[in-house]
């Protein structure tokens, strides 16, 4: 499970369920304090679930994307 490093808003979701991702690939862009924060996949795999939607407010440690 990829978790949020900081509180913010989900700006763009770059993957959908079933997508294959590589290690280091950007899966989402968060916005916090007027800055875009890219979220990367820590390991290669398949997107099982995208937990959040664009525009959602998220807290630190919130679940973002599940990869297996």
């Amino acid at each position, binding site marked *: 499970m990829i978790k949020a490093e*900081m*509180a913010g808003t989900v700006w763009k979701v770059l993957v959908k369920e079933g997508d294959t991702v590589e290690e280091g690939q950007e899966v989402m862009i968060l916005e916090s*304090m007027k800055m875009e924060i890219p979220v990367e996949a820590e390991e290669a795999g398949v997107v099982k679930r995208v937990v959040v939607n664009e525009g959602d407010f998220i807290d630190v440690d919130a679940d973002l994307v599940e990869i297996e």
Partner: protein
Amino acid sequence: MFQKVLIANRGEIARRIIRTCKRLGIQTVAIYSEADEKSLHVCEADESYCVGEPPVNQSYLNVDAILAATKESGAEAIHPGYGLLSENAGFAKRVEQEGLVFIGPTSEVIEAMGSKLEARKRMASAGVPIIEGVNEAMASATEAAEVAAKIGYPVMLKASAGGGGIGMQVVHDEAELLKAFEGNQKRAESFFGDGTMFVEKFIAEPHHIEVQVLADQHGHTIPVFERECSVQRRNQKVVEEATSPFISAETREKMLDAAVAAASSIGYTNAGTIEFLVDANEQFYFLEMNTRLQVEHPVTEEISGLDLVEWQLKIASGEELTIERSQLRIHGHAIEVRIYAEDPVRFFPSPGTITKLVLPQESGIRHEAGVEEGSVVTPFYDPMIAKLITTGTTRDEAVTRMQQALADYVVEGIKTNIPMLRDVVAHPEFQAGRTTTKFVEQYYLPEVAKK
């Protein structure tokens, strides 16, 4: 003079404006979002109005709610501070149409200076030096490549509506330009709603030096010296000082003359800043005009003895400037650092609760803070939480005071850039006054990597 002013901003700048209003006997009205209900600026104002939910587009950019609060409070004028609605020509126009006073220039001037291309054209006709480039929009990547070939690489690809480095990229050859054009155009389109692109010659390792001007509604414009703002990260300023340790007295006079010509030629009124890029040979070129109070205005106040917010209020209420350029003197030196709630290495934001805050209180230190111990720094707004300003009779004295103040400055509970600021101010190149816009990449980041 106004009886009551609404401040359409938050944090340290709202508090800064309230302070001068109080000294002048002007009633103050604060606005706040639901996230800022307990903020210091709300407590310090005479009245306050909630203008919406935490995200800025629902609160601090909510024009209807802000105008409704102004009407209800009976305020005659709106001070926009910096950022947010301060350079929004549509907002200034609405304020004018409602019969209120916008504390700044006219909406027409804001609109013209908001377009980098339009500003280029106007400055060129006023005789202000501009960077070699084009004065019209590039219709396609191929057209941009033709122009770039004439100017000579490297060139700077720029979005006319851009800001904060967005929609801007240095390109070194045609292949790179063709690749970069569309992406930057799209980003400018999505961020600013305007994908107009143009091309300028790239200036290597420039200094970023800007001139403060004050202009009244009776045709008087005076320059209030310059600020050196070259130390930047992510195209945002981190350390600013007045005056510039780089330029000669002769260059200073030329830059002040150019700034007055620039402001006068567009009918500028109120406080404004002309930003210049200055190359290694002290040749300077117009970069852009900021039609508002700057974050770094305190360094100018410290060396000139003027209260810029006081002059903004006086000018907006129709008073004449009673000071002349020849009367202004440079008193010593001033340095400002911006304290950001962010990781000092990756520059990523760090919202959270400030569990401990100690602000050093020796002489020659000025604080502008938007927070106190116990404040919650939310993820909704800009990461700048405070500014620290030191002064001295010489630059060395101001630098030494800054080093001591940063050593004594304590913020706990969130990460801040204070460790970075300590390293920057202690660096021999900074101490020697050799600061270009490449400072952080050239000196700070390599040393962090070594550690």
